[in-house]
């Protein structure tokens, strides 16, 4: 894994440059950083664009003529209407920011020693799970569905021993390749630890 990914907005970064974790140990390097496939952002982007068009339609000639809102809008002051439109766009900005942050920070990080799974959910939820390679029992991927096949995304699942937290990332890009690279890393780790012990 010598190729370095410099793009911070990629959904699959191999040995990402200038990227570090708060929980990173000395000598530990980030080998793979995986986010959900970029196409999974399309629904919220479309939602934000449609929501942004709504005031333009309401205050257009079409809106005045066909939506019958003119009488209702006449009841309110121009300042309140302007403030409401500004608030509407600020809510859209918040919606977009929240989804962008969720996409960017919901990551599965594979280092040369372990998995770190960061989950961020609206509004205040943050969850971090870790699993050392020595605890890993099985790494698998699952790909199913129309969109998953067209855009080549699927779930990566890491099963750990005992009652340890299982690690997973759904809708990861190129799951077969990611699975292959992860198993290579885990095998490398086991080979090195066996050599160390002998």
């Amino acid at each position: 894994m010598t190729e370095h990914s410099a793009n911070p907005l990629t959904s699959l970064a191999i040995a990402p440059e200038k990227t570090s974790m708060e929980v990173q140990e000395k000598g530990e390097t980030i080998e793979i950083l995986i986010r959900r496939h970029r196409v999974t952002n399309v629904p919220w982007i479309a939602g934000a664009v449609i929501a942004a068009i709504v005031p333009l339609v309401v205050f257009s000639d079409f809106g005045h003529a066909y939506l019958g809102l003119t009488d209702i809008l006449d009841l309110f002051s121009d300042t309140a209407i302007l403030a409401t439109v500004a608030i509407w766009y600020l809510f859209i900005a918040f919606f977009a920011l929240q989804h962008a942050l969720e996409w960017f920070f919901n990551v599965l990080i594979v280092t040369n020693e372990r998995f770190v799974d960061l989950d961020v959910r609206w509004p205040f939820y943050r969850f971090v799970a870790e699993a050392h390679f020595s605890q890993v029992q099985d790494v698998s991927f699952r790909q199913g569905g129309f969109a998953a096949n067209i855009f080549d995304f699927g779930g990566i699942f890491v099963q750990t021993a005992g009652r340890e937290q299982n690690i997973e990332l759904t809708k990861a890009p190129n799951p077969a390749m990611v699975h292959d690279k992860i198993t290579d890393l885990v095998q490398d780790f086991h080979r090195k630890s066996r050599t160390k012990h002998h």
Partner: protein
Amino acid sequence: MNIPILPQGFSLDMADVIRILEHVFVVGFLLILLLFAVQKVQQVRLLNRFLNTTFAPVWAITTWVFLLAIIMLGVWYALVYIL
């Protein structure tokens, strides 16, 4: 409009009621947005600390701009009614 709780000599017409509702609506939503924006600034600070990338300043600046936009809208709305 006769409202029994109002002191004698005061009266409210429909336009006054609508003005009050406007203020409650705008100020209420601005406060909700302000709360969200402050939370985002703090959340991004924590997340950038956990996962530090070259994109970290962009998230920090975006959340601060969002917070400032809300504060500026609030200031503008207050000034329109004060001045």
